[in-house]
């Protein structure tokens, strides 16, 4: 019974974080914030859904597949978000106007100064 209630709570929490990811993707002001909001909370949400499936299923093969889904998501979601943000920055997508810290731009300026000297 404890397992069933834990799984039910995990399902509700997972779907709540998935909705939070969608709200973040709709409300955040630029691509970079949207990517980080979507990636982190959607990964957490789907991972807790898979954890609930792992708790509920009786067969060991199915729970191994749920564990495999968690491993895939934790491995691939940060890489995909990083590559998309890098490509967006290279393609010249502007940041929000209130963004103050842009370390990649500072690094590029520093490199340009070094090469001029």
């Amino acid at each position, binding site marked *: 019974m404890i397992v069933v209630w834990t799984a039910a709570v995990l*399902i509700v929490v997972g779907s709540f974080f998935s909705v939070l990811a969608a709200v973040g993707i709709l409300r955040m002001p630029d691509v970079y914030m949207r*990517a980080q909001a979507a990636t982190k909370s959607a990964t957490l949400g789907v991972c807790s859904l898979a954890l609930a499936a792992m708790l509920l299923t009786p067969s060991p093969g199915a729970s191994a*597949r749920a564990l495999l889904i968690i491993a895939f998501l934790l491995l691939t979601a940060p890489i995909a978000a990083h590559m*998309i943000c*890098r490509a967006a920055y290279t393609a010249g997508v502007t940041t929000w106007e209130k963004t103050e810290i842009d370390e990649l731009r500072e690094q590029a300026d520093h490199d340009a100064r070094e090469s001029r000297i």
Partner: protein
Amino acid sequence: MTILAVYPVDVAARFALILLSVAAVLCFIRLRNGPSLPDRVVALDTLATLLVGALIVHAILVEETHSLRVAAVLALVNFIGTVGFALYLRRRDTS
């Protein structure tokens, strides 16, 4: 036993399907009017992740584990597609 809804996992799974549908609609709005192409790619990536979650909830709801294999494959294909879009964006910019 005809009323399935007394089972807490069943109630939670149906609730989760509703919430995931709402999340998918919000992602579609961003996919429709994202100002740049990376916005749309991020929305598409999140949409596929939400679809993985919906497949897992479906597997819980109908007590059938075949959807879990589909979800695992979809997670991998989603990653490959997003990386392909990122490489395409970078190449389109340099050429």
